[in-house]
């Protein structure tokens, strides 16, 4: 009877077969890489064609940018991952968002001493538009959000916190957990919040409310008003934009102080 698969001969044969499979496997990968390279070239051509017809549309139309970004996300492509990517090179989307990133960083840095590193998306938007000047292309809030998401990777604490119907943009590496976020959301309505409000709305103990407020104070994101009628109020300069909209000269400021 013929015993199959045993003996030195069989082992050698098996090894040979395995080696052949591996070789074939490598060849397969090589084939696929070659195929991908070809397809990439084709895709690049298609993209160039698209760019020649519609590059302006992307530049001028924030709505179209949103559609474009959403479609990319749906198929698993990040057009902003690298300045070296096709999308960036040919459609110019990269430069648009990366430059916006620089402008966002600069605005946040300039205002940090006032708001502790927390700013509403609206205010950021206004400030960025101001900085860009009259003739620059239009920038939407969606554009800002996308640029900020990309900035996160730089490690300096950029983050987006949903509050009310809008967002707060964080630009410092401060720890803001769920408790802090929830209190920020509560403060959004009036620009300030009190311990009693936190207790009644969120049903927290006084201690927990105080801890959160103290943390925000420490980080410079909240200011304490002990002269308010009733109990102390914790104001968030980030939310109280009226503070900035008036350009007060030092003389006026002097007069304002009693």
């Amino acid at each position: 009877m013929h015993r199959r698969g045993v003996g030195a001969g069989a082992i050698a044969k098996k090894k040979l077969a395995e080696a052949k499979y591996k070789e074939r496997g490598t060849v397969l990968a090589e084939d696929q890489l070659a195929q991908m390279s070809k397809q990439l070239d084709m895709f690049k051509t298609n993209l160039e064609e698209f760019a020649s017809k519609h590059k302006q549309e992307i530049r001028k139309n924030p709505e179209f940018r949103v559609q474009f970004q959403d479609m990319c996300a749906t198929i698993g492509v990040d057009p902003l991952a690298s300045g070296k990517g096709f999308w960036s090179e040919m459609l110019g989307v990269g430069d648009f968002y990366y430059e916006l990133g620089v402008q966002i960083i600069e605005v946040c840095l300039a205002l940090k001493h006032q708001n502790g590193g927390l700013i509403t998306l609206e205010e950021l938007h206004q400030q960025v538009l101001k900085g860009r000047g009259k003739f620059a292309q239009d920038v939407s809030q969606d554009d800002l959000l996308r640029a900020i998401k990309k900035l996160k990777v730089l490690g300096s604490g950029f983050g987006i916190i949903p509050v009310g119907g809008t967002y707060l943009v964080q630009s410092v590496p401060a720890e803001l957990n769920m408790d802090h976020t929830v209190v920020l959301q509560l403060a959004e309505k009036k620009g300030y919040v009190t311990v009693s409000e936190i207790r009644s709305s969120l049903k927290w103990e006084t201690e927990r409310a105080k801890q959160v407020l103290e943390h925000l104070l420490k980080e410079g994101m909240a200011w304490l008003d002990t002269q308010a009628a009733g109990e102390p109020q914790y104001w968030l300069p980030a939310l109280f934009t009226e503070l900035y909209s008036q350009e007060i000269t030092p003389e006026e400021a002097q007069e304002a102080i009693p």
Partner: protein
Amino acid sequence: MDRFAWTSGLLELGETLVVQQRGVRLCDGEEKVKFDSGVLLLSTHRLIWRDQKNHECCIAIPLSQIVFIEEQAAGIGKSAKIVAHLHPASSNKEPGPFQSSKYSYIKLSFKEHGQIEFFRRLSEEITQRRWENMPTGQTIQVNKDPQAGRIRAVGIVGIERKLEEKRKETDKNISEAFEDLSKLMEKAKEMVELSKSIANKIKEKQGDITEDETIRFKSYLLSMGIANPVTRETYGSGTHYHMQLAKQLAGILQTPLEERGGIMSLTEVYCLVNRARGLELLSPEDLVNACKMLESLKLPLRLRIFDSGVMVIELQSHNEEEMVASALETVSEKGSLTADEFAKLVGMSVLLAKERLLLAEKMGHLCRDDSVEGLRFYPNLFMTQS
């Protein structure tokens, strides 16, 4: 048949008609029921049947109820049919013609033909699951039946739909641009699929694929903006591009670093480099990936990540630990300092000043006083005075 509910037959907001067919009979499993002659309508959300003789008799079933469908070819004296296998009725279903049924499938019998087209459209709607993207006023039962690997093209179709509505008001250019964009995306999708299959091959044969091929593959991914599925590489997403970039950075940043005491945060670097370039800017990811390679390329700069997550570039010659010693001196002179005060004194950014003080604390040289007035650092007398 107990999954059906009475309905007015009017489409909800966000619901669109896909196809309709006259002369359709409904059967409860193998049994005939009184719904023998009606118009069958397929919308993005539901299957609706309306009696041809009595228009008020109208019933509907959410598409989410359908598990799968089969075709039954026509025979002699028999019409072509679609068999729809259904999920059990939900408890909060609206009232319908039947309270219970011993069958978990229904048959749609196409007496006036149209079965082929209807089957095709129904298959499409079930696959695309557009109802999930466009919730209507009705209570739609969403199936929690994840089908692994299913490509969700819903986003694109949903967007297409919205744009169709806006087309009347908007510039014609946009619709053309959008059509072209959709076609482009289809091709991009193919690239994503191909890259996934190659990535799987690489994963299977770790070590059997050459480093050169891996690098090639990564650069293809970079061009397309596809996330690298084969992570846990020795040098992250590094490609030749990033290596070159790292070398460039070493050149560009030497002087600025020296001017700033040998250390800069990555955000500062990002702004500096991109402002200088003006065009062909770097993405944040490009910068990070290039910086990750600085050390291995033996360049005179390095990337350092503090405990807080803050990332900086330092000159190799820069020794943060030595700077800590001088920080301690400064703090001692003043008694105590906050990060802001220290930053002003020394002429560095508050971010980096804080990191230096934190490092000094970590090394045991400074103590903190954490109060609502801010974080203040003192020399650590516990260590120096016994």
